């Protein structure tokens, strides 16, 4: 017996750590959390005898325990509904709620997703689409739950299979159909079959005339793999400019970036961390907050003064102290001024230091629009372009940027630089003022809250005092009553004694005499 208990207890100690997603950490066995109360109002509204908190807790505990009996198998609703008494629809609701929050079936692959994966086209040899990135089961660390695909209101809507990294960013390894060697992706070109998409020939085989099978020379067309190899900085810069100019028109973009095909442009743009912002901003300029954040980030980067640099630092500090306040007020500020730079300054609060690059280009474009000077000013100064390109290629170190800017300063057009410095200064000043205002508001709010708390405490004390006073009054009344009772008893005693004396009883009161 001891052996088994030891084993079971050690097993229990092992299995005691169940993984649930981090966002479900509110769950405790002994209590019902606010989230549960909100979700299941029917249990907590005291309107029925079959739906009470006790019942809910029993359902919930039973289902979770049942799942944890064997975490390797996926618990189905049908298997547990036979154990519980109650409306099956309600039970199902509880079950789905627990599953949604990952408290049960967390480590089980969703069968629906599996079905969709097998039907979707996936490249050979790559990771299957939609695989969950979690740590191994039974690990002690809580794991972030993968995005859940649950929307019962629209059964007809199916989600496309999740693309994986390799789908987007890696090209499939191509092998020559004839000689079996991998087509080098970086150097030489290879020939693709027009009709059959999987058949490729390397250059050598093509030249030798070995086409493999029944293919003829006409069937193959040259596809330049070298073109997609590396994106130089100039190309990246060109790409960004053309995207801003042409928006969604990839043909024109590909033409501007002459050495890259259309698809390459798209994929490169996606790769860049801000790529999607650009695509959106080009088509819907200045319409949403994110896009404004990128020019504002340029503002950070474009500082040409050491002083401005410091200001930015303080502003960033302010940011970190009170992001929630800023988020609340950002909505108010956005429809205020129409001036771009002022909006930029206001939105600068929301920006984190991580957004850098297209900020450069976008702000240049924006400034050009506002100042109505042609973009050529920027393009003629090759050095400037290079420096902008340097920045746009993801140089996040602000000190580096400053150095570069210091170097390039002498070569830039003075009016432009000066203009920009001035506008930058105003922007930063406005941002700093904004931050200060927010800080003040925050403080005032805090004071208000403290005052209200104190108020409440006072009220509590007052009501307690009142209660005690009432008690006192009652006690007084009772005391009086007691006094009255004492008096009457005394009177009675006296009268009894009198009657006893008049009846001739001896002076010594003794019960035994009475008998």
């Amino acid at each position: 017996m001891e052996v088994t208990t030891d084993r079971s207890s050690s097993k229990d100690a092992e299995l005691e750590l169940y993984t649930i997603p981090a966002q479900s950490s509110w769950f405790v066995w002994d209590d019902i959390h606010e989230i549960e109360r909100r979700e299941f109002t029917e249990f907590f509204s005291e309107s029925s005898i079959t739906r009470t908190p006790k019942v809910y807790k029993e359902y919930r505990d039973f289902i979770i325990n049942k799942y944890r009996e064997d975490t390797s198998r996926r618990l189905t609703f049908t298997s547990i509904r036979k154990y519980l008494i109650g409306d099956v629809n309600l039970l199902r609701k509880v079950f789905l709620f627990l599953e949604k929050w990952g408290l049960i079936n967390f480590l089980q692959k969703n069968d629906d997703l599996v079905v969709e994966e097998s039907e979707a086209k996936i490249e050979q040899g790559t990771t299957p689409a939609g695989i969950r990135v979690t740590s191994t089961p039974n690990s002690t660390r809580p794991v972030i739950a993968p995005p859940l695909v649950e929307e019962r209101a629209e059964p007809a809507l199916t989600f496309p299979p999740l693309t994986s990294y390799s789908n987007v960013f890696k090209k499939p390894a191509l092998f020559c159909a004839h000689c079996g060697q991998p087509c080098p992706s970086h150097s030489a070109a290879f020939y693709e079959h027009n009709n059959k998409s999987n058949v490729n020939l390397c250059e050598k085989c093509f030249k030798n005339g070995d086409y493999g099978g029944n293919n003829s020379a006409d069937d193959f067309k040259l596809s330049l793999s070298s073109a997609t190899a590396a994106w130089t900085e100039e190309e990246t810069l060109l790409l960004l400019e053309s995207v801003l100019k042409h928006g969604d028109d990839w043909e024109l973009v590909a033409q501007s970036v002459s050495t890259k095909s259309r698809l390459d442009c798209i994929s490169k743009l996606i790769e860049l961390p801000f790529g999607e912002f650009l695509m959106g901003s080009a088509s819907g300029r200045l319409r949403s907050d994110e896009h404004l954040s990128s020019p504002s980030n340029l503002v950070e980067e474009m500082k040409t003064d050491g002083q401005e640099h410091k200001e930015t630092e303080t502003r960033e500090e302010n940011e970190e102290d009170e992001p929630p306040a800023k988020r609340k007020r950002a909505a108010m500020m956005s429809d205020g001024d129409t001036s771009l730079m002022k909006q930029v300054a206001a939105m600068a609060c929301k920006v984190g230091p991580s957004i850098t690059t297209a900020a450069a280009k976008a702000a240049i474009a924006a400034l050009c629009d506002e100042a109505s000077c042609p973009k050529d000013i920027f393009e003629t100064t090759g050095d400037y372009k290079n420096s902008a390109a340097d920045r746009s290629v993801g140089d996040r170190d602000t000190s580096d940027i400053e150095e570069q800017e210091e170097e390039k300063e002498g070569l830039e057009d003075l009016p432009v630089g000066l203009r920009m410095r001035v506008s930058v200064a105003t922007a930063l000043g406005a941002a700093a003022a904004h931050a200060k205002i927010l800080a003040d508001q925050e403080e005032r709010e805090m004071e208000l809250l403290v005052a209200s708390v104190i108020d409440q405490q006072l009220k509590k004390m007052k009501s307690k005092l009142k209660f005690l006073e009432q008690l006192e009054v009652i006690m007084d009344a009772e005391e009086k009553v007691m006094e009255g009772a004492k008096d009457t008893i005394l009177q009675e005693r006296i009268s009894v004694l009198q009657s006893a004396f008049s009846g001739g009883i001896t002076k010594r009161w003794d019960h035994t005499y009475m008998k």
Partner: protein
Amino acid sequence: MKASGSSGWKGPVKFRMPTAENLVPIRLDIQFEGQRYKDAFTWNPSDPDNEIVLFARRTVKDLKLPPAFFTQISQSIQSQLADFRAYEGQDMYTGEKIIPIKLDLRVNQTLIKDQFLWDLNNFESDPEEFARTLCKDLGVEDPEVGPAVAFAIREQLYEIAVQSVSSARESRLSKKSRRGSDYGSASKASGLSMDLVKLFSFKSSVVRKRKDLDIYEPMVDLLTNEEVDALEAREERHAR
């Protein structure tokens, strides 16, 4: 003098199917000139009436039935819908009523036997969703099973809803004297509902006793073709 903590006695509600979607179960069984057409489906009563005609026409065309079926089908559907609509104007009792629903049906080669509890008062219940989950969890591959299960549930709910209309009428007549105990009387009137007070009292647990587990467990059987034929023959004999 209402019993304290008595379950939600709400005012009577206009009659409707006590499910999330107000769909009526329609059953057709028409025999004519040696051909028999049996079908069961759900109909949305708020559809315009010309839909019935369209449906009947399409059915006759798809199944290549003799044209006489057309009138029969549309008449049958219309009469069932009319029955439903007749109830619609009346009040329905909506106390808390948890009834056991039994499934015992055969669809092509799949045999399903099941029993579970259903709250008649839960207007968000969804038989279709339940049927879908059932088939998915039990790995039923025949796609016709799900709708058949949902239909069976709906039929039973419809029946009980109709009963509750009549019981509401009765209780209304004698309402003056039994104001407080309406809950008890109505639930006992149907004879099917569970004794909720006992089941959900403070002392008992909602976990089912072991002896009841078998009853409430779903059972799915796949029959071979011969068994199907045998069963069908037996059903025919019973019908006649």
